[in-house]
């Protein structure tokens, strides 16, 4: 769920609780204020009426409400409390044709002769149910308007603010070390996003420089190893040539030379890997993979014949792809070599070429390889010290450069399927 919808959901729920609570308190306070006001008014009327009654004795006998909003009735002699009594009741009102709430003040006063009179004053007050109803409607209106305005603010304002955040996200998604991609710049009015963008960029630059110095290190180390290797191999060769040695001694020198040759291959594969990753194979051309595969198979015929492995090709379609020729050769020949080496006598290697994919399958050991790790550097499922353990890593880094996909499958035979991106 997007952040803005998420906050909106919680805001809407919170408002749904907060607004009724506020409304309840508001209602009680308002009503209290209204009653207070009316009561004050009634008390004021009482003072005026009593003053008038003293001046005009006729008023002392007005037992009916009539147009007046009060009655004065003489009381029999006795001891009365002069306290004001307030009460609320309902009374029929012609105008509304309904019972309406009335506030009544009932009190007793004595005239100058000491006779007691009962004074009742009425005032119409707020209709609570209607007030509640109105308040309820107004509140629903308020709630809807609040939610709509939050939604609008979220969509318009927040979207604008979050735009830079999304740019940061896009930047992060597109980070690919070693490509030297620059991050898109952020211009946000929000400090946090600017800081975030700056930190992301710093982190990216740091990673990029660590990555490239590591690549550089591998490349330099491999280069630096070439000359000492050359000296060792050549000195041994010359030594074996110039000295009369026994068969055993020759054998030992042969073993040392083999080991040095292995080191040389390892070193060359490492160099190849870093060159692929440094994208030093930039020249591209349209490669016809059908032709390339047939050509490479011819190169490997001697080895295949020697191992008694039968190579066949099924061409369902012709496959063209634009890439570096050296890398195309390395891709196919590493897979082919792999299929030949991890094969057995009287085994087979088969290529199936389709419009957008090539499957190379071969006989070999009777159980599937661990597809998680076969492309990792220096992974070897056998202990043959003849293999460098880098062939499939080279395949992997080539395909990574061209968005090609490689899959490993096992169904009684080992299958590598390379799927080219559709044009």
């Amino acid at each position, binding site marked *: 769920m997007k952040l803005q919808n998420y906050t909106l959901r919680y805001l809407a729920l919170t408002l749904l609780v907060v607004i009724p609570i506020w409304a309840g308190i508001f209602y009680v306070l308002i009503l209290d204020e209204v009653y207070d006001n009316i009561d004050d008014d009634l008390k004021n009327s009482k003072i005026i009426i009593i003053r008038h009654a003293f001046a005009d004795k006729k008023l002392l006998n007005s037992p009916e409400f009539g147009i007046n909003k009060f009655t004065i009735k003489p009381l029999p002699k006795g001891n009365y409390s002069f306290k004001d009594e307030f009460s609320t009741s309902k009374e029929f009102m012609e105008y509304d044709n309904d019972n309406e709430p009335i506030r009544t003040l009932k009190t007793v006063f004595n005239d100058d002769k000491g006779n007691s009179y009962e004074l009742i004053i009425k005032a119409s007050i707020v209709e609570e149910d209607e007030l509640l109803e109105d308040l309820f409607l107004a509140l629903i209106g308020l709630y809807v308007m609040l939610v709509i305005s939050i939604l609008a603010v979220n969509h318009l304002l927040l979207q604008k603010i979050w735009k830079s955040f999304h740019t940061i996200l896009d930047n992060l998604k597109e980070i690919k070390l070693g490509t030297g991609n620059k991050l898109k710049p952020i211009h946000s009015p929000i400090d946090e996003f600017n800081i975030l963008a700056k930190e992301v960029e710093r982190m990216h630059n740091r990673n990029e420089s660590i990555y490239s110095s590591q690549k550089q290190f591998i490349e330099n180390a491999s280069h630096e190893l070439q000359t000492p290797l050359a000296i060792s191999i*050549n000195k041994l060769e010359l030594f074996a*040539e110039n000295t009369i040695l026994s068969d055993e001694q020759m054998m030992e020198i042969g073993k040392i030379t083999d080991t040095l040759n292995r080191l040389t291959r390892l070193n060359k594969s490492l160099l190849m890997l870093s060159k692929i990753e440094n994208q030093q194979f930039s020249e591209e051309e349209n490669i016809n993979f059908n032709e390339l595969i047939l050509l490479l198979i011819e190169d490997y015929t001697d080895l295949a014949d*020697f191992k008694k492995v039968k190579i066949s090709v099924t061409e369902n379609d012709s496959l063209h792809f634009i890439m570096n020729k050296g890398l195309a050769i390395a891709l196919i020949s590493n897979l082919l070599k792999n299929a030949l080496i991890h094969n057995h006598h009287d085994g087979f290697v088969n290529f199936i070429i389709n419009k957008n994919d090539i499957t190379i399958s071969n006989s070999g050991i009777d159980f599937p390889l661990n597809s998680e790790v076969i492309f990792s550097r220096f992974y070897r499922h056998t202990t043959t010290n003849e293999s460098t353990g880098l062939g499939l890593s080279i395949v992997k880094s080539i395909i990574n450069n061209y968005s090609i996909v490689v899959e490993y499958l096992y169904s009684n035979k080992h299958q590598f399927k390379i799927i080219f991106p559709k044009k």
Partner: protein
Amino acid sequence: MKILIIEDEAGLREVIQQSLEKEKYIVETAYDYISGFDKLGAYDYDCILIDIMLPNGNGLDLLQEIKRQKKQSAVIIISAKDAVDDKVKGLDLGADDYLSKPFHLSELHARIKSAIRRNNHNGDNLIVWKNVTLSPEQRTVSIATKELVLNRKEFDLLYYFIINPNRLINKTAIAEYVWGDHTDQADNLDFVYSQIKNLRKKLKESNAEIDIQAVYGIGYKMN
């Protein structure tokens, strides 16, 4: 035949020198750009081996100097950098070959010989060994006067032996020369062995006076 080696690594310089002197070449050496430059001005060489990375200068600049002086020498670049760019640049500047370190001495000899041969343009480029005559351009072999038909790989094998007579040749060097890096991992020994067995059989059937011997553990030697 005079050869100049311009290489800063003393160990490598010595071993190349010793190996070339065994072939009866006259060898001069230089250890950096300046000494290389001096030697270039003073003498003429049939072949010059130049390392690209040199103290106080670049081998490619020396190559340009050789071409500027219109020297007839064959030039082979030897470099620890197996970089495509350097290779292309070197060959564009007029180098005859590019050899990346590390290499086998037999490979170096083969490269030097073919570079000098190509550089001389003197028509008769036949290589003769006893009763075997080999034409690298025509890719034909004749024993005495009779032609021997070999396939491409067999020819390459024989050529490699004939160009490296009396030298101990590592089986990996043979495999790399004839089959490229395709055989770089598996079964080197057995594979090369079976290929050489076929060649020997053909040579023997046509009475070639060539004896290719297996050297236990290392490779082969022709004498």
